C-alpha cells in the first residue's frame, strides 16, 4: 500500500477520524508527518496559560483544608467517650472480670 498523500491524511482527520486512528495504529511512524502538517496554533500555549491560570493562594488554601480540624478531632473524642461509657459503667459496677 502506498502511503496516503498529505491531503488524504488531512481529509481523514477532518472527515474520517476513525479511519485515521486505524491508520495510525498500523503506521505509528506516520504520526510525525501529521505533527508537521498540524502544528499547534501560534500563541496557543500562552493563551492556555492565561486562561487556565492557577488562582493566587490555591495551594495554601488546599494545604489548610488538608490540616486535621481540631474541632472535628475533639468532637470525635467526645463521641468515642459516649460509646465507651456503658462499658466503663459496667466495669465499675461489676469489676474488671465481671466477678460480683
Amino acid at each position: 500500500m502506498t502511503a496516503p498523500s498529505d491531503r488524504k491524511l488531512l481529509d481523514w482527520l477532518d472527515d474520517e477520524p476513525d479511519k485515521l486512528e486505524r491508520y495510525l495504529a498500523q503506521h505509528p511512524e506516520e504520526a510525525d508527518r501529521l505533527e508537521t502538517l498540524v502544528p499547534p496554533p501560534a500563541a496557543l500555549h500562552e493563551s492556555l496559560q492565561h486562561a487556565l491560570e492557577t488562582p493566587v493562594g490555591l495551594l495554601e488554601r488546599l494545604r489548610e483544608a488538608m490540616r486535621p480540624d481540631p474541632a472535628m478531632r475533639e468532637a470525635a473524642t467526645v463521641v468515642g467517650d459516649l460509646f465507651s461509657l456503658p462499658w466503663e459503667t459496667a466495669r465499675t459496677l461489676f469489676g474488671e472480670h465481671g466477678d460480683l
Partner: protein
Amino acid sequence: MSLAPPPDTNRPATNPAQLGAAGAAGSAGSAGRGAGGAQPSLDDVLAEFGPSIYRVALSIVRDTQLAEDVVQETLLRVWQHLDGFRGDSPLRNWVLRIAHNTAVSALRRRRDQSMDPTDMTLEPSRSVSADVERSVQGRVMVGAVWKALEGLDETTRAIVVLRELEGMPYEDIAAALELPLPTVRTRLFRARRALSATLAEWSP
C-alpha cells in the same frame, strides 16, 4: 469540602506540619516513587501536581470554584488509594487520571443539577490575572481560547491541556486518560485544527 483525613496510622503522613518541606518547590519528579523509594506524601503530591490538577480540572468543568473542589476531591482520592499505587507507571499519570475522572464526574453532577443548560457555558473569567484582565488584548485572547475550547468535548480539552500546556508525552496522556495512543493523537490534531480556526477569527 474538607480534606481532613480520618485518623489512620497505616496511611501516609498528610499533615504538612509533619512533613517538612518535602516537594515544596514541585521540582520534576520529587513526588515520584522510584524503585524502592519512599511513598510520596499527599503534600508532595499537592506541591508537585496541584497546579496541573487544577488546570486539567478547569479545562473540563470551566468553573473556577468547581475546579478547586475537584482538586480537593482528587487529593482525597489520591490519599485514599496511595497505598494501592503500584509505582509501575509515573505517579503523574495516575494522579492526572484520577483528576480527569473526578472532573468529568463533577461536570456530570453539575449538569444533572442544572435546570438551565446555558449555566454551563460561562467563561471562567475569574481565573484571569489582574495583569491580563487589564490588557484588552489579553482579555480578547482569553475569550478566544475559551470560545475555542468550548467547541471541544471535555476529554479532548484535557488532551489539549496535557499536551500543549503541560507538555506531557503522548504515551503518558494515553496512559493517564486510558485511551489508545492513536485516539489521543487524532483528537489532538483535530483540536488543533479547530483551535486554529477559532483563534484566528478572534485575533485582533
